């Protein structure tokens, strides 16, 4: 059984995970585990030691779908093992009466959208967090253990050291601001210019002219689609339908294809506010898609996947609102 608690940023490998978020492995399942002390430390995230006592919110976000099928529980116990930050699974296993030293217990939950628990630390000390996931069928139990301290804000650092740190941070921050404001701007501007040039190649603003059959289009290797929207012009924040005319490049209508629709704003990195679906092929090659809605102005893309017999092709309809 693999048990890793990685509290430090350098152990993330810097591939996908953001720098300041901690990774926990429960067996071979991965999850983010972060702690907030919102009332005293605002948005600051902690993954090992908690500076303050009081309200602490532990948030576990599953990175692995497998965890959703499992019952996950969470326990905080006093760390009496004497091993401090080096406490591991076997230390925990050798605890005789775990309930006697438990300060917080969240009974098993299956697939919450977010696994979050709140514990109010009233005394400072060393603790161990224990996450357990139980497989629903095999009954196999996976555990992750992480030692941490709470309320360790020390008062024995001498004032000069504090002043030094404050000054370093202050000047570092100034330098950072200066760097941030001076350097990236030309790059940013050229990026915007690039975007503008790029946008000029995009379809015309949909609101500029009423959408008819020929206005919104998309093409793939075999197919071409034309869009006829139920509202003209297409505007933001209004749910509506599209009729999609699906043809091959030699203009013959394509019947009985299976269409799926997804979409979003590539520049904003988010999806549609709805989940549109094809509801009917109203006449041969004419597919009605319900539930289309855009909630921001700007460039949107709808990705349409066309499955027919054993072929599968994807095309994109872009529109600028």
């Amino acid at each position: 059984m693999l048990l890793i608690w990685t509290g430090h940023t350098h152990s993330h490998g810097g591939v996908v995970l953001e720098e300041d978020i901690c990774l926990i492995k429960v067996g071979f399942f991965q999850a983010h585990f972060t702690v907030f002390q919102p009332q005293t430390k605002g948005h600051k995230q902690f993954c090992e030691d908690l500076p303050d006592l009081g309200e602490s919110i532990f948030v576990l976000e599953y990175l692995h779908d497998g965890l959703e099928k499992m019952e996950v529980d969470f326990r905080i116990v006093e760390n009496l093992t004497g091993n401090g930050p080096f406490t591991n699974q076997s230390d925990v296993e050798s605890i005789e009466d775990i309930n006697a030293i438990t300060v917080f217990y969240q009974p098993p939950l299956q697939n919450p959208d977010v696994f979050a628990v709140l514990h109010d630390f009233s005394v400072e000390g060393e603790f161990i967090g224990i996450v357990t996931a139980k497989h629903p069928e095999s009954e196999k139990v996976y555990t992750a253990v992480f030692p941490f301290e709470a309320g360790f804000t020390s008062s024995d650092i001498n004032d000069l050291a504090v002043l030094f740190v404050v000054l370093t941070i202050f000047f570092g921050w100034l330098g950072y601001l200066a760097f941030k404001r001076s350097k990236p701007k030309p790059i940013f501007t050229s990026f915007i210019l690039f975007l503008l040039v790029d946008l000029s190649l995009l379809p015309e603003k949909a609101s500029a002219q009423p959408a008819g059959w020929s206005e919104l289009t998309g093409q793939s290797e075999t197919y071409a689609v034309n869009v006829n929207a139920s509202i003209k012009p297409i505007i933001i924040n209004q749910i509506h339908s599209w009729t999609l005319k699906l043809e091959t490049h030699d203009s013959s209508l394509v019947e009985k294809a299976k269409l799926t629709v997804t979409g979003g704003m590539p520049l904003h990195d988010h999806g549609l506010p709805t989940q549109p679906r094809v509801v009917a092929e109203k006449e041969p090659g004419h597919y009605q898609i319900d539930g289309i809605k855009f909630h921001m102005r700007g460039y949107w893309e709808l990705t349409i996947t066309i499955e027919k017999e054993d072929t599968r092709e994807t095309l994109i309809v872009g529109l600028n609102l």
Partner: protein
Amino acid sequence: MISTIFLFVFAMLSAGSFLLWINFVPINDWSKIELDEINSLWIENLPESPPADPTNLVADRKEARTLGHQLFFDQRLSSNGEVSCATCHDPSLAFTDGLKTSRAIGISARNAPSLIGVSYSPWLYWDGRKDSQWSQALSPLEDQVEHGGNRMFYAKLILNDADYRRSYKAIFGKTPDINDSDRFPDMYGPFETPENIALWSGMTKSDQFTISEVFANLGKALAAYQRLLKPGASRFDEYVKSLNSNQKDTSSNILTSQEKLGLKLFIGKANCTNCHNGPLLANNAFHNTGLLSSPGKLPDLGRKRGIDVVRQDPFNCLNAFSDDNNACMELLYASSTRELVGSFRTPSLRNLKLTAPYGHAGQQQSLAEVLNHYNEAPDAMIGHNEAKPLELWSWELWQLEAFLETLDAPPKIEGKWLAPPKNNS
């Protein structure tokens, strides 16, 4: 000594001219794109009537508005006789209560949103757990910390009050007989208590339906009244109007330079119109902006839970009390992805000054606090903050704040609707 004085004067002059520069540098010309964006926010582009609600046949009936108006201000619609809708939706505060989270029978978990312009939204509540205004109106009535009553109590109240009974009959055509207390037992307190649930499940399905229908109709009348609450033209709208009529001289006086600079940021690099778009300055969609949890509470899942709740709701668009089950595209096609964890409905920015504090749990007391939050765009406790740090200078935040304070205006409605009706106690 002289050089010190000289330095001091020089410093004062520099600071003074800097302040003048940031606040009074005039903006006279807007680009075509900017004008287009400014116009998209103009109140004249808000349809005169809210979108039709086919699920509520009486939504635009005069008698229903009048009944809704009476109900809205009637404190008898609560378990302690002291809470009306207006308790938390005070007309003098743009139908909010000025509190972090509302106080009625108990203390609510969320901040009371303004009701002005809400009828233009397909989703109600911060988390969108209601899909129509009439269905939304029912929830607080049965909530234990809000009105604290139950549908049986309200149905009896309406049908046993001569005035209400008459109005109800005129609008909905029939007044069911619910006097048989064996079939329709008296229920006390919120609907969801074990005693009430037991009494309710002892009733026949058709008697349950009778009571729920009266209850739903109450919501429909309340919605008819609330559909009247539309925003009025603010100083910002006056400015757009004069821009459009090319009256440069007047337009320059309507907004100060600082406010215009704020507007420029609002439609430009502050990215506000990504979500605060259209004439209500809200897209009524759901976004995670990384607000902190309230003291003693876990982070709120927001829309991720809201969408599950509304799909199960017996008073939603697809269920028996909706007057049109074929007008439910929003509900049928709503997204329910993980992207929605910790997301909340974009509130309208109209009447912003009057509607503090801000955020779904009133986390932010002032506009300055809100703007600082967006400027930093910190990581969200759950899900992901969609906003990116703005890196604006502090004077740019002042300019934005100045602009945001130009959006207040009395609602576009006759004064009589903003006070309890005359004939009501």
